């Protein structure tokens, strides 16, 4: 295990101690949950701990890294994190295509309980949001934080703990849904023990961030770190509050939320909406504010605007959650408040999107030639579009039509495919050659291919869902001449069928692009750095190589 060789002797000892504790925890869960699905998760934790113990022991006697390690940034966690992000992307998007197909062909469950829509839909959402997005955020945040602070990570062990601990959480979450373990809170489905584990991981993550910032050799904290920091902090707040629950017993995977009814709904959507804000927006804006200027070779258009939009986003988003509950039993004043702030949110959002696009002014020829930069540009465009759509949909009367329909799904995917995935792929394609010291990606042509698959997939998907959502919403509220409802629910279901097929195709296109990307990343890592093999790959030579410091 190469990564063990980067740990000092005492860190290897600490790793073993932590893993033994983890093993004991797994054992305890297994013993306490003998008659419960919890035992399965206890076993999973034990196996994970055991595998890691073996890895540490097998690398235990490799020579220690010397002090010269301090002359370099510690990039192992970023490397592993990016690979894991790509793997989760493939898995999460595969499940996405599967759940999409289930809505068109419901018997694709193969009669297995674990494969029904209700169980694998959270596998998809958790796989892509937390698996793909989360790993990408952790990996890039370590990368960006070190470079912008010009300081090395405080130690080698804790970043690895965060990375692997986080992936254990994702694994517990995803496997749990298929076993029927869920809190049923959307995007917060994992049960109490997984939630507690995430808190531990997250606290360490936060401490690493603070320790690195404290040791920085730059007077100013670069704005990307502000966004990453907001992501870490606020996600912790949201996670802890929304997951407050009382377990049935320590031997049961099931817990009951501390809140009920209207309070629970408000807490849940305060969480749900801010998960979008601080997980899917703030963190990825941090990514954007580092990788885009870097790749374009131009400083960010207006640093001041980036600060204004930072505080705007941090402030406004928190109020906007209640727009998920228009016309419900939630008091009207909370609904109005949510709507008002959702509309105001457009200002900082568009300031960010505009700032990103203006950064590219004078570098448009690079956008034309370089698919990596184009990923980032498209991400900024979709960010602008989606935030506009979001504010629009938060208006009560619009929401009365759009809520409960596929329009919401289309909106979310415009954001996640168009914005989050695009900026992430852009950042990954930029960092992989930097991290593995390669002149460029294995194939720039395949990056180009991925780009077009991703764009096509996003557009097909989003248009299918816009159409189906609006038709659905209109059919539900259409009256005939005699003043009764014109369509039964089943009528609207039949009308959705072609769109559900179209969205499956869109998802499949996007997944194909991702698989192309996985192959390309893998080949870049595997292929030894070439020393100007002219003619071996003409496409490579023709492309402008954009390196840090260009």
């Amino acid at each position: 295990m190469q990564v063990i060789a980067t740990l000092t002797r005492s860190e290897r000892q600490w790793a073993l101690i932590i893993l033994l504790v983890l093993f004991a925890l797994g054992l305890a869960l297994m013993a306490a949950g003998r008659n419960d699905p919890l035992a399965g998760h206890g076993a999973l934790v034990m196996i994970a701990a055991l595998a890691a113990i073996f890895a540490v022991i097998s690398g235990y006697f490799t020579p220690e890294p010397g002090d010269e390690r301090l002359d370099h940034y510690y990039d192992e966690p970023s490397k592993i994190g990016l690979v894991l992000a790509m793997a989760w992307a493939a898995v999460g998007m595969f499940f996405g295509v599967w759940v999409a197909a289930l809505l068109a062909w419901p018997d694709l469950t193969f009669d297995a309980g674990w494969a029904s829509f209700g169980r694998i839909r959270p596998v998809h959402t958790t796989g892509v949001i937390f698996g793909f997005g989360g790993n990408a955020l952790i990996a890039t945040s370590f990368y960006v934080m070190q470079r912008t602070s010009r300081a090395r990570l405080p130690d080698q062990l804790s970043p690895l703990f965060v990375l692997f601990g986080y992936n254990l959480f994702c694994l517990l979450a995803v496997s749990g849904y298929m076993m029927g373990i869920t809190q049923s809170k959307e995007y917060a489905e994992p049960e109490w023990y997984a939630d507690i584990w995430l808190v531990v991981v997250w606290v360490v993550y936060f401490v690493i961030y603070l320790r690195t910032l404290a040791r920085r050799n730059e007077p100013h904290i670069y704005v990307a770190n502000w966004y990453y920091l907001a992501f870490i902090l606020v996600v912790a707040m949201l996670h802890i509050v929304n997951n407050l629950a009382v377990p049935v017993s320590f031997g049961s995977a099931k817990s009951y939320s501390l809140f009920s009814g209207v309070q629970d709904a408000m807490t849940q959507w305060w969480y749900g909406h801010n998960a979008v804000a601080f997980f899917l927006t703030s963190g990825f804006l941090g990514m954007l504010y580092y990788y885009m200027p870097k790749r374009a070779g131009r400083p960010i258009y207006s640093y001041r605007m980036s600060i204004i939009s930072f505080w705007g986003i941090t402030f406004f988003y928190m109020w906007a959650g209640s727009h998920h509950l228009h016309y419900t039993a939630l008091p009207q004043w909370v609904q109005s408040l949510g709507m008002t702030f959702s509309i105001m949110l457009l200002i900082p959002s568009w300031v960010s999107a505009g700032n990103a696009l203006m950064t590219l002014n004078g570098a448009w020829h690079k956008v034309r030639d370089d698919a990596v930069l184009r990923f980032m540009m498209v991400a900024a465009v979709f960010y602008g579009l989606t935030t506009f759509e979001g504010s629009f949909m938060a208006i009560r009367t619009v929401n009365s039509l759009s809520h409960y329909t596929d329009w919401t799904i289309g909106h979310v995917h415009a954001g996640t495919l168009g914005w989050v995935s695009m900026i992430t792929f852009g950042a990954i394609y930029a960092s992989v050659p930097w991290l593995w010291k390669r002149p460029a990606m294995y194939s720039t042509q395949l990056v180009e291919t991925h780009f077009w698959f991703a764009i096509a997939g996003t557009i097909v998907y989003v248009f299918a869902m816009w159409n189906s959502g609006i038709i659905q919403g209109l059919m539900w509220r259409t009256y005939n001449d005699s003043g009764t409802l014109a369509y039964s629910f089943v009528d609207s279901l039949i009308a959705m069928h072609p769109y559900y097929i179209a969205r499956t195709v869109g998802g499949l296109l996007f997944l194909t692009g991702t698989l192309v990307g996985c192959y390309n990343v893998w080949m870049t890592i595997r292929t030894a750095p070439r020393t100007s093999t002219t003619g071996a790959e003409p496409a490579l030579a023709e492309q402008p190589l954009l390196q840090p410091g260009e």
Partner: protein
Amino acid sequence: MFGFHYRLERKAIGLVLGIIFVASIGGIFEIAPLFTIHQTVEDAPNMRVYTPLELAGRNIYTREGCYACHSQMIRTLRDEVERYGPYSLAVESKYDHPMLWGSKRTGPDLARIGGKYSDEWHVAHLINPRDVVPESIMPRYNWLSHTALRTDDLSAHLRAQRAVGVPYTDEMIANAAADAAAQSAPESPLVEGLTKRYGEATTVRSFDGNPAELTEMDALIAYLQILGRLTDVATHPASAAGE
């Protein structure tokens, strides 16, 4: 004053506190008043708690992720009221830990599904939805009717529910497993205790048509049949106390 800005950017901790302060205010101002909301919303004196069988059914509902496609929240819009029934009131989900309002209607709203269809319809529909509704895209849940319901931990479930504020009595907790069995076995001598604890109106019948066995199908249908019927405050506003 500008010393403050200087510190803010010099010291990461200042930034941290700034973010926490800015971000927490929205949540506090929006959510805190909701915890005093009982002072202003309707009250339903005749509201009852879920029986152990219904609670077990509710847990199956969440386990299977039914909430991903079925909402339980009828909005105050004319077409929704005409399609699904009187709009949902806050009080109706006051014992729902967590709430299952949902966010998407791939299938219809279920807030008032209770009593709309027969048990036989539900059994057939859950075994294969397309036998009953040919166009349906719902998954089959045929294994529910031959999976025995786990009842040994129901007392612990009720105890946890009480810990979060649902008024289950000691007696209810002690008899949870027996009450669950009794509710789907109308001939059982245990029925008397069940109706004593949860009221005469409690639906007692073999939900899956097989009184000999207590299955997950029994539990899920018991839950579906009580949806929207824990209180009649939405249909008979006169019985509301506070308004």
